């Protein structure tokens, strides 16, 4: 845990505590919810690196507390999550996802502290989403995020919303360590990140977003200016020439303009995300879009079947792409979401993505069901295949895995 976010929220907590004391108990309501997950992963292939193992087990926990008071005008929230992993020290970690105070006044809302903010509409790739840093050790899909210290002001006149963000502290992406899997053949140098900004982690980033809806259309325009959340991974030779080179994360300064569109056409949901963005050398364009549709009660059963089709485009050349942690430059994603509508709430999501340039492929399946009212168990599997060395996916071609997990809710 980086200490900076903690320090920066001391102010927020102090303000919050003072307000809390002053607030009394007018319409106050507090909620506390927790969950604990036991997880085991089995990797299909062994690697050449003897430090890596073919299986690991971990225990993860998350808790969230919210306190509403002052006729629900004010709220304090705290969310913590952590994990203990049997193999990878980098995967044993904890994080403050939320520690913030929020004040709502008419159509305006101010929040100060650590928080999580989600931008975006597509299913397979989160292109526009950029406020929070990604936690890739919890899950390789990039959907897990780290708490971000921020001051957020939101103005909501009717059917649209203006949001302004000041992000005073930068957090590095969490990636697997030397003993961890899903990192590719090269090892990442831990704690050796390089920054384009001289302020490094203290560079103040700014962002704004305008979003709204009318009829069957929904849109958002966003702008971000600051240190890129996704690093470029640069090859760095080691002191010992017999050792393979290592990877060093380089966090460049960027600006990103993002567009999100959703269009509801009957039972079809059309989606588009596009960004124009600058890295340390060039401006580039990337987009992802597609549709989602659902059939209910398939074949007279209680099953619902959803179909997801998305295309992903990125106009950077392959050398630049290779340095990115996750990339989709000419990829087609096909997905099926099956909802059982049974007592156990059985769900299954199958995604298949195919890189049309390199033939790299990823297939994933996530299925889960409830056991009683307080438990949920799931199975997850990911299979990678890459036939070209220039494809980022090929670094994972030895990382196929199966995962079992069981969560208890409190």
């Amino acid at each position: 845990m980086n200490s900076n976010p903690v320090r920066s929220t001391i102010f927020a907590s102090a303000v919050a505590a003072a307000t809390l004391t002053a607030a009394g108990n007018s319409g106050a309501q507090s909620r506390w919810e927790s969950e604990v997950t036991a997880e085991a992963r089995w990797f299909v292939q062994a690697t050449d690196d003897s430090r890596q193992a073919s299986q690991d087990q971990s225990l993860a926990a998350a808790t969230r507390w919210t306190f509403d008071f002052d006729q629900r005008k004010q709220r304090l929230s705290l969310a913590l999550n952590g994990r203990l992993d049997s193999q990878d020290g980098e995967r044993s970690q904890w994080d403050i996802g939320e520690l913030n105070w929020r004040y709502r006044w008419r159509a305006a809302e101010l929040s100060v502290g650590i928080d999580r903010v989600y931008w975006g509409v597509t299913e397979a790739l989160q292109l526009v989403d950029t406020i929070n840093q990604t936690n890739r050790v919890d899950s390789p899909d990039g959907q897990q995020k780290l708490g971000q210290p921020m001051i957020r002001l939101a103005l909501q006149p009717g059917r649209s919303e203006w949001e302004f963000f000041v992000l005073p502290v930068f957090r590095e992406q969490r990636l697997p360590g030397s003993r961890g899997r899903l990192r590719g053949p090269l090892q990442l140098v831990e704690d050796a990140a390089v920054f384009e900004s001289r302020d490094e982690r203290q560079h103040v980033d700014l962002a704004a977003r305008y979003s709204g809806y009318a009829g069957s259309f929904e849109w958002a325009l966003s702008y971000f200016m600051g240190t890129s959340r996704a690093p470029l991974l640069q090859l760095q030779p080691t002191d010992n020439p017999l050792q393979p080179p290592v990877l060093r994360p380089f966090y460049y300064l960027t600006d990103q303009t993002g567009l999100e569109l959703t269009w509801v056409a009957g039972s079809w949901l059309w989606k588009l995300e596009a960004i124009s963005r600058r890295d340390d050398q060039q401006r580039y364009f990337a987009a992802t879009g597609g549709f989602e549709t659902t059939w209910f009660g398939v074949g007279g059963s209680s099953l619902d079947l959803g179909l997801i089709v998305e295309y992903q485009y990125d106009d950077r050349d392959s050398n630049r792409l290779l340095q990115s942690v996750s990339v989709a430059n000419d990829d087609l994603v096909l997905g099926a979401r099956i909802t059982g509508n049974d007592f156990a709430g059985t769900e299954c999501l199958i995604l298949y993505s195919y890189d049309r340039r390199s033939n790299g492929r990823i297939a994933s399946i996530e299925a889960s069901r409830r056991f009683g009212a307080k438990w949920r168990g799931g199975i997850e599997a990911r299979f990678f295949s890459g036939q070209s060395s220039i494809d980022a996916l090929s670094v994972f071609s030895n990382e196929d895995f199966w995962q079992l997990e069981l969560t208890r809710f409190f």
Partner: protein
Amino acid sequence: MKRWLFLAALMPLAALAVDTDIPGFDATNSPAENGRAIAVEAARRDDGFGDSSAAMTMVLFDGRGNSVQRAMRSRTLEQSANGDRTILYFEDPADVRGTAFLTHSHAKRSNDQWLYLPALRRVKRIASNQRSGAFMSSEFSYEDLGNDEVDKYTYRYIGEVSLDGVPCYHIERTPTDKSGYSRQEVWIDREALRLQQVHYYDRRGALLKTLAVGDFTLHRDQFWRPGRMHMINVQTGRETVLTWEDYLFDQGLNAREFEPGALDDIR
């Protein structure tokens, strides 16, 4: 004797005469006009409730002796110009708690719907045919729980019948918008124009589900709300009992709380 017969012959007319408090309802009008007139009047009598909230408990029966329970809360905001806005947020089972479902009903077009997923802090727009999907694995579809805007159906007044001793208007209504049903038969009581029973017919025209509504309570001396809804799927044998408690009115909820961007702090 003759006099008595005369009175008996007059009885149906007398019954109709009582209904002059339903504007546009007249024996000389067409069944379509009369059916719609009752629906319009039922909706009018519910005008002005402002906002309301309630706790909902749902018990699902699978027809083989097993049952499970669900808990959620609802908040509704009346919109004078357009359809109402409703948020359903789930409390139990634990794995879906915090999930919220927002509907903006519209009188003349498909509803706008959003789902809030707390794990990702994400608000997702949902295609409008989600209406025919099962609500939390129950026998209720999202469509069944949506607000019954008058213009979402065309009507045909069938006649007056007694339903378990309660005099009711028997009306057929056909969805004008995309729907999981070809038609519905509804029974609305004469006394207070409350929806007492519904028969749902699937797209092939076969009876799919029956709904019995009861345990009504009166709020603010004007607004009737059901305490119990019992849905039976006659094709599968599955049943759902939905009970409503803790109705609260006029809590000063504002439209801003019913915007998709506010779903993350609704609870």
